[in-house]
């Protein structure tokens, strides 16, 4: 099915989700060029300024242009989350394929180790990592990837084990195929769809983790800012209902809800097509 035809059959919530996701991806990619002001520039006397023609999204607690800061912040949030979610899903899937195709004690050992990892709360792990190594974008990606790899592994392994018992895998074994071929060519293509849905979910988790970290002041460090740190630094504007705190919070919300809507309808449809 061509991409256009696929789009045509997407239910409404899926289309809305797709539009939101596309919007945020575009913002992350090109937002920097669209920003009317420099991120760090104090451009207004007015702190926690309201929506206005000069500053469409108001100004923050120092009088900086909120639109420019959101555009800049979304690039951090989305960029870091994408990288971390991609790393988590890829590692999880790869390890799961090795475990499931090898089977036996390899599978057993890997699964136990992953179970141990999964029992560490992700926030806790993040706090320890930041405390030990200091906060940097690379470390944040590593931390988030580490905390979500076991989850992705679990899903991927369950899928792979299911596929492994199917007759076409038995047929490949009887043909004399090696394990790498069976994993990559016979099993992997049959788990891509659900793993894409899982990837979307991981992405949302990472966005929330990073935002939470930044909100605690442990995430992206000034002068850079992601959506979470934007909420934090403007939190004192909450009582006056300043756009500076509402807008980044709304940005996080729309991003995560949009991704969720998209995966729900795409994976639901994949199931309907298979049935």
């Amino acid at each position, binding site marked *: 099915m061509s991409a256009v035809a696929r789009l045509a059959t997407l239910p409404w919530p899926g289309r809305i989700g797709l539009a939101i996701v596309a919007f945020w991806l575009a913002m992350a990619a090109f937002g920097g060029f669209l920003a009317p002001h420099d991120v760090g520039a104090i451009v207004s006397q007015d702190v926690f300024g309201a929506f206005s023609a000069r500053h469409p999204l108001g100004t923050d607690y120092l009088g900086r242009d909120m639109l420019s800061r959101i555009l800049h912040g979304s690039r951090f949030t989305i960029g870091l989350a994408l990288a971390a979610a991609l790393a988590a899903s890829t590692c999880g899937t790869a390890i799961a394929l090795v475990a499931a195709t090898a089977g036996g004690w390899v599978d057993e050992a890997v699964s136990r180790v992953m179970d141990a990892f999964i029992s560490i709360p992700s926030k806790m792990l993040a706090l320890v990592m930041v405390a030990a190594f200091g906060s940097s974008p690379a470390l944040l990606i590593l931390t988030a990837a580490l905390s979500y790899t076991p989850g992705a592994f679990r899903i991927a392994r369950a899928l792979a084990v299911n596929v492994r018992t199917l*007759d*076409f895998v038995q*047929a490949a*074994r*009887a*043909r*004399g195929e090696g394990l790498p071929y069976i994993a990559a060519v016979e099993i992997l293509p*049959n788990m891509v769809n659900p793993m894409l849905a899982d990837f979307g979910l991981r992405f949302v988790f990472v966005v929330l983790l990073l935002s939470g970290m930044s909100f605690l002041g442990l995430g992206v460090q000034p002068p850079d800012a992601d959506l979470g740190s934007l909420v934090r630094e403007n939190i004192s504007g909450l009582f006056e209902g300043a756009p500076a705190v509402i807008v980044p919070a709304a940005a996080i919300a729309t991003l995560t809800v949009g991704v969720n809507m998209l995966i729900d309808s795409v994976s639901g449809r994949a199931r309907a097509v298979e049935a």
Partner: protein
Amino acid sequence: MDPLVRVEGLRITARKPTGEAAVLVDDVGFEIPKGEVLALIGESGSGKTTVALSLLGYARPGCRIESGRIVVDGIDVLSLDDEGRYGLRGRKVAYIAQSAAAAFNPMKPLMDQVIEAALIHGTATRAAAEAKAVALFADLALPDPGGIGRRYPHQVSGGQLQRLMAAMALITDPGLVVLDEPTTALDVTTQIEVLRAFRAVVRDRGATAVYVSHDLAVVAQMADRIVVLNGGRARESGTVDQVINHPRDEYTRRLVAAAAPQPRGEPRGAVETPLLEVRALVAGYGRLDRDGLPAARVLEDIDLTIARGAAVGVIGESGCGKTTLARVIAGLVPAARGDVRFDGQPLPTDLRHRSREQFRRIQIVFQNADTVLNPAHSIERILARPLAFYRGLRGEAARARIAQLLDLVKLPASVASRRPSELSGGQKQRVNLARALAADPDLILCDEVTSALDTVVGAAILDLLADLRRELGVSYLFISHDISTVRAVCDEVVVLYAGRKVDAGDRAAMGHPPFHPYADLLIASVPALRIGWLDALPRRLAASLPPVGEALDEGLCPFLPRCAVRRAGRCDTTPAPKQVLPGGREILCHVSLDELARIQSGGAA
């Protein structure tokens, strides 16, 4: 007298996911006089279940009864509202489905479920309904009619559950009983018990029934009249005798021909060099114990030889270990004891120690074509892999060979670009076969290659196998639960029972007694396309035997609990000896071959 059921101009349509309407049933009509059994026969997709369901005023989700008239016992079924339909179902019309297991709640005792309809419709008090149920159980030849109602569904066998479902349907004395493939899911030996019971009940109670089936031979035993459906239209209808013995319609003729498979290919002598030799094989599943024997032993002491170019058939009921045998030879299940030699060389039973050449020369065609082709790959890719893997063929050469292979299995070249999900069952089975042929194998292990297919499609695959054998000289290990298919394609037949080889011989020898008692039961249970076959069955097969008592010792004849000719003092104390006749015939039994031959030719047991 007015007929009990009259159907006129029935037309049923369905809406496809793409939005267009598909006609499932078109202009079907028939009448059933009271007390008669009408059979609806056709292949899968011919619309037989759709017609049967419409008699209850029911159309499956997405389907719509567009036009026509259905009158059951004076009631215009299609004009009923929901409440009217509800009263009709269960009381006037009862439905017995293909799989009884799905119709029972596993958590409730059987009796409660059997009498439920009577209580709901208020046709009887609880005590009266239970008494009636017990009488029905007895009529249906269920063991322990008084007590079986206290059991739960998992505590009875599949054949018994099917009969209990019949009791459930008959409890309200419905005017019309609809039986939808009620024995298709059963082994032949079980099917025969169920057929007998159904027949007796339908006849004794003078019930009017619609019997839906794809099996002409079964229908010949059960029905008075037959309607042949194909592609949603009635191709022919008439009395059983007329349809079976003097079919007028071209499609009916093909159906009749496919029901009685003709032998394909000339039998070969066993003088040629053996291609595959299996000696004293023991195999199974689960953890190995200290002696290296698996926890669940499935195959015991199996010997088997396949000569070059020969076809050896393996038959036996579900779970007897047929697939396991093929998997051991293919290297998917390790052998615990015994050895396998291929072309004179020992064949490692562990996959990892086999050479690519050994893999190439033995190909396995799995039972279920629906799951054996990777849904993510195109047919071209599926066929290209063995070509590249075994012979290094790529690009143009591979494409040419794929076209040849598709042609060999009589598929159009256009399927190459499709995915498995876009093919029919028969087409998938052909691709499955083509993939095996791509390796240019010497031996193909065919596991129930035709079982999932309609008779006519299955017959075409059997022809294909016979052609390939003649043209390419491949050997087959042909696994099936259906002895008539096996006899049609194989030079030699091996009968497995509970993982033991109980009977073996060439095609000619397997055509007449003596047989091992199990083989005898199996062969005699296959419905023949002959009216009155069921009534003429020899008495020795009718037996429901007294239980044997305590659990069987290992090594004793596994057929003991079901054997009608067992010899007390011998069969239950010592393992059965292997009796060998000249010409390679082998029977594992205590009873002498002369005696067996005498009993099975019609003498008393």
